[in-house]
C-alpha cells in the first residue's frame, strides 16, 4: 500500500499519475483507468479544498472471485460534511464548484463509502474492479 500527501495542486497531479500507473498495471481497461483517475482527481481536490489537506492510500485488492481492483482511501481532518445526502446530490456545492465532485465520482467507481463526522474529518473509500 502506498500513501501520498494531498497538500497542494502538485500533490493532486501526483496522485492522478500514481493511480493511473497502478490501474494500468493491474488490468483495468483504458476507460476504467480514466474513470478511476478522474474520480481520484475529484476526491483529491475535495480533500485539499474542503478538508484542508489530507492523505490518500492506494492499494491493490483482490475480490473473492479473483478480480483485481484498485482501492483509494482519502482521509482529511477538516470540518466534515454536515448533510451527506445533500452533499451527494448532483449540483449541490458548498463552494464554487459545480457540485459534481462527490456525486460524479461515485458514478465513476464500483464501490463508494463516505464516512464523515462534523469537526473531526471525512474519509472516502472507493474501489474500481477490473472486468
Amino acid at each position: 500500500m502506498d500513501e501520498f500527501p494531498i497538500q497542494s495542486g502538485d500533490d493532486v497531479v501526483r496522485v492522478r499519475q500514481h493511480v493511473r500507473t497502478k490501474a494500468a498495471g493491474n488490468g483495468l481497461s483504458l476507460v476504467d483507468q480514466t474513470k478511476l483517475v478522474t474520480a481520484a482527481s475529484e476526491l483529491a481536490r475535495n480533500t485539499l479544498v474542503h478538508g484542508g489537506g489530507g492523505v490518500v492510500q492506494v492499494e491493490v485488492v483482490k475480490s473473492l472471485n479473483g478480480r483485481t481492483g484498485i482501492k483509494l482511501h482519502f482521509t482529511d481532518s477538516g470540518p466534515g460534511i454536515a448533510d451527506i445526502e445533500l452533499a451527494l446530490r448532483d449540483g449541490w456545492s458548498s463552494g464554487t464548484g459545480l457540485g459534481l465532485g462527490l456525486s460524479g465520482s461515485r458514478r465513476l467507481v464500483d464501490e463508494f463509502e463516505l464516512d464523515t463526522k462534523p469537526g473531526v474529518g471525512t474519509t472516502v473509500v472507493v474501489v474500481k474492479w477490473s472486468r
Partner: protein
Amino acid sequence: MDRVPIAKIGQTLFVSIQIELEDESVLQLQEDLADEISSTGARGVIIDITAVEIVDSFIGRMLTMIGSISRLFDAETVIVGMRPAVAITLTELGLSMKGVRTALNAEKGLEILNGRS
C-alpha cells in the same frame, strides 16, 4: 506551475495542452487567453486536448468558462481532440460542457471557425 503556450495564426489562437493540468495552470490559461484575445482581436480559439488524459469537473468547467469569456470578445472557442475515454467519463460524471463547441480534431475545429461570418 507549468504554463500552457498560446500561438496566433491569422485570426485564430491555438492552444495545445501538453502538460499534466494543475488547477493553477488552467486558471492561468484562462487569464492568458482573455488577455491575448483582447489584445490581438482574435476571432477564434482552438484548444487541442489530444494529450489530456483526464478532464475532471474543475478542468471541464474552466474550459467551458474559456468559451464564455472568449464570446464576450466576439471570439468563438472550439475544444478539439477529446479522447474517447475522456468523453465517456465526462458524460458519466455529469458534465455536459454546454456553452463551448467541440470538434473531432483541429482541422474540423478550423472549419467551424472559418464557417463563421
